[in-house]
């Protein structure tokens, strides 16, 4: 019997996951580890079921911040890259500030942003955007610059206009790099959203998963903490999978195999 590599690629990580969960469960039961130190997977599952509505509500809030940040990052990142690529002088003048924005830890500036931006949701979105936008800017910029020199000469030889160069050469050339940037940014937007929620410590109707984790910690409800963590992980995986699928769809012509 032959197993396709695709089936192995799906089955192997699942098998590892199941084995780890079984070992975890067995260890917790065997050594009678109390749930407030390390809950067993079944405890986490039970907590997830019991707190389902509240956790899902928190997940919705976190995802709303994530998606808003990702959308703004894409729009702002692409526009910034187009601005930077216009001239070397513009790039040289502005790029250091883009890098400063990237290297400043968001945790350090988040309190400031939360003070400056009064409304909670926009403040969280600003924090998440600051983290997520950099890969979009740098990748799109690199993509716009990665035009095949021969093809560029060909366009020039045919006296192509600036608009023709942009639409028919630069944008399609930049697409693979942009898609790679989007894939990285989607994960960073989620990280940014969770970090911002931690710093803001926002409760109430817009409480996100980070708030659930903080609250669970204060109440020593460790299974609930793990349940929230599991939801963040699943959300991250779904985001990654979605952008990877989008990347495959958009770039299928690049990799088309006969």
């Amino acid at each position, binding site marked *: 019997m032959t197993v396709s590599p695709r089936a192995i690629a799906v089955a192997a990580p699942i098998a590892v996951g199941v084995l780890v969960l079984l070992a975890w469960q067995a260890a917790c039961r065997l050594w009678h580890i109390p749930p407030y130190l390390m809950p067993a997977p079944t405890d986490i599952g039970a907590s997830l079921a019991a707190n389902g509505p509240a956790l899902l509500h928190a997940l919705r809030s976190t995802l709303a911040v994530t998606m808003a940040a990702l959308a703004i990052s894409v729009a702002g990142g692409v526009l910034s890259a187009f601005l930077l690529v216009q001239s070397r002088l513009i790039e040289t003048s502005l790029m250091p500030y883009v890098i400063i924005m990237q290297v400043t830890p968001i945790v350090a500036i988040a309190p400031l942003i939360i003070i400056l931006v009064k409304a909670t949701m926009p403040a969280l979105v600003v924090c998440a955007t600051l983290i997520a936008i950099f890969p979009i800017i740098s990748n799109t910029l690199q993509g716009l610059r990665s035009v*095949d020199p*021969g093809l560029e*000469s060909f*366009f020039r*030889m*045919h006296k192509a206009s600036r608009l023709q160069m942009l639409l028919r050469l630069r944008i399609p050339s930049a697409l693979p790099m942009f898609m790679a940037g989007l894939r990285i940014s989607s994960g960073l937007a989620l990280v940014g959203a969770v970090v911002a929620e931690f710093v803001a410590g926002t409760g109430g109707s817009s409480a996100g998963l980070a708030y659930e984790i903080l609250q669970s910690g204060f109440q020593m409800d460790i299974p609930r903490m793990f349940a929230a963590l599991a939801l963040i992980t699943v959300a991250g995986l779904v985001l990654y999978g979605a952008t990877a699928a989008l990347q495959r769809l958009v770039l299928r*012509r690049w*990799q088309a195999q006969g």
Partner: protein
Amino acid sequence: MLAPAPTIHLQSVEKVFPNGVRGLAPLDLAVGQGELVSLIGPSGCGKSTLLKLIANLHQPSGGAVRWWGEDFSAIGREGRRLSFVFQDPTLMPWSNVATNVRLPLDLDGVPRAQAEARIMPALRQVGLEHAAKRYPAQLSGGMRMRVSIARALVTRPDLLLMDEPFGALDEFTRNRLDEDMARLCARDGLTTIFVTHSLYEAAFLSSRVIVMAADPGRIHAEYVIDPGMPRDEAFRMSDAFARICRDLTALLSEVSPRRAGEEGI
């Protein structure tokens, strides 16, 4: 009556790069209508630089290039069309073969319907009419190069410039493409300037071979081959071809960069 101006006329053309390297010493070259001229010589002898000067992709540091006796602004008009085939196929990976071939017509502002009608004949010329809907990633290296040639032919050029187009291909594919090129150029009376590393390719295709020398780039010798000889498999096997190759080998050895006292491998 005045004789028609040569297709290409270089008068004392030289090229010094911004870093001070002298790419080409002042040289003169005239290429007439219907000629197939090859440029051969060691690496760094300025073959590609010379071709790019003719394509107006480089500007000369001195001297003048004339196209049909005029400046470059005349290029693109009826009877003054120029096509360039690069060393790499330089296709758009995101577009299928038909769209790639149509590109120069789109850039030149040819109406869509008229452009569409010219794609299949151009693909037929290179034997790729079955591949119009395929993407570059689905083609072999030889097929991609054929698409690149179809893209050059679709504009119905009057002057075709080729910069080592078959350098990356295997011998078998290269020979076949050389035969196709020879047939196309002879049929349409296309003026062609062809840069190659292979003296066999130069011997097979050309009506004139320009042997260049390096440091600085200059013309060392010219070798004329009877354009009346049919360029086919029989020509490749003939004594005449062997003699041409021998003569070209001798000329190339005169400009070989290997200095006296240097050890071979």
